């Protein structure tokens, strides 16, 4: 084993931490952008106006069927040759956003259209407006549906930031390549870099699974809902005590 680990890792620690930070930045910015754009594309695809649907469908199909690496080259090198020079961070984030938005839009679309139309009708019958129905009735249910697929995409996006090595984005993989070129110890370096990716992705996906479970169990996550449920529990205390039926209550207390 002592033969395997010969790279002076402590010398590289500041650079590695920098690179780690950049990987996280690409992931956060890329994912946030992809969620927003994905939601917009999903809503366009569900629109009653056919040109909107067509534009969204073309977008989704194009970016789902082009490799991410090609998109990275197009935004960084391609646009530059057309006179649009983007810095590497912008180009990297943009690539991740347009690529993952295509996948997320499909997940969001099916989640939104999967909410039963009786739900919208119940909202209408109660005098809620379109925005209120979407925000309070459709979206929370769609989120529940979309969460597993979306979480998979988040972890996938984190791993895909490694493709940005091709434009020297100074994230983890680029740093790995740099260290390799200085030490010529490819096996050791890429084992360590892989371990770092694993140490990021595994806890993240476990955390997301926990979130999925909580949301599925209907645990109130927003402070407003928590306050409301707490106040309701106080008002209903006498009624709930009358019956040994506090299953949902206990479950919630445990989580």
């Amino acid at each position, binding site marked *: 084993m002592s033969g395997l680990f010969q790279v002076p890792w402590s010398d590289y620690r500041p650079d590695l931490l920098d690179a780690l930070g950049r990987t996280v930045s690409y992931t956060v910015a890329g994912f946030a952008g992809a969620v927003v754009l994905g939601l917009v594309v999903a809503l366009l695809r569900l629109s009653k106006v056919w040109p909107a649907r067509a534009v969204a469908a073309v977008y989704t199909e194009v970016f789902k069927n082009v490799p991410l690496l090609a998109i990275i080259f197009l935004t960084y090198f391609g646009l530059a040759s057309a006179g649009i020079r983007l810095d590497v961070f912008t180009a990297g984030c943009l690539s991740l956003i347009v690529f993952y938005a295509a996948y997320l839009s499909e997940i969001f679309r099916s989640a939104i259209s999967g909410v*039963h139309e*009786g*739900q919208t*009708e*119940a*909202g*209408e*019958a*109660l*005098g*809620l*407006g379109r925005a*209120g129905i979407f925000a*309070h*009735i459709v979206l*929370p*249910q769609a989120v*529940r549906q979309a969460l597993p697929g979306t979480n998979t995409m988040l972890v996938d996006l984190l791993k895909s930031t490694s493709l940005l090595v091709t434009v020297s984005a100074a994230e983890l993989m680029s740093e790995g390549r740099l260290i390799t070129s200085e030490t010529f110890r490819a096996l050791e370096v890429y084992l360590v870099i892989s371990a770092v990716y694993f140490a990021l992705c595994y806890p993240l996906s476990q955390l997301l699974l926990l979130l999925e479970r909580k949301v599925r169990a*209907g645990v109130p996550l927003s402070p407003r*809902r928590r306050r*409301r*449920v707490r*106040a*309701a*529990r106080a*008002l*209903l205390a006498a*009624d*709930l005590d*009358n*019956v040994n*039926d*506090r*299953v*949902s*209550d206990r479950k*919630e207390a445990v989580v």
Partner: protein
Amino acid sequence: MTEPVATAKTVAAARAEAVVRIEGLSKSFDGRLVLDDVSLEVDRGRIVSVIGQSGGGKTTLMRCVNLLERPDRGTVEVAGEVVHSGGRTVCRDLPALRRTVGMVFQKFNLFPHLTAVENIVLAQRKAGIAEAEALERAVTLLRRVGVAHRGLARPDQLSGGEQQRVAIARALALRPEVLLFDEPTSSLDPESTREVLTVMRELAADGMTMLLVTHELPFAREVSDHVVFVDGGRIVEAGRPQDVLDRPAERRTREFLAAYGSAS
């Protein structure tokens, strides 16, 4: 139905009494006529039951009252205000209309991501009712329909009867002037049906104005002031329950009741 000698004054008085007034209503879906020149009135404090075969237009008729369906022709008037006329919605404030009209669905349509009590609070908050009052009202209503002990359960943890009673509480929370019931017991087992009918009986005793689409003919006979038999999109026969259900004048009504009798 107005007496030929009625003065303008008595007509106006009769109008003020009607919470729901439908006149000459027609509605087609994809060229198929579902409602054909239907007129109907529900006076304050009265209960009107609409009976008839499935697919006969009963539900569509009911959904035209709160404009979940927009009629092609005719007039819909709710609480003295014309809301739809000649194929055009003239209601200035659709959310306000819908808060005036409570609706209970066949499949409950509770919000599955919210607890029973939150289901009842949501629309109240959107209607501008303060949080504390909305909660207070929700709890009071849950007690009234006998599911307060399940107030923190989510819909999938409730039985069908409990869900429908929560749905009734939700519809009552905005203090509507009329409640629409769209086959409220059709998805329920006999035990749950009994629970829901008990709640509806109590509402009737409290003087709630109701328009009810139902297959529960004994219940319709018991609580209704007026029974309307709809078939093929037209009102075939209407009148007091004992007349329509026990001494129907029309052949089609007799056939329907005979089929119902042999089925149950």
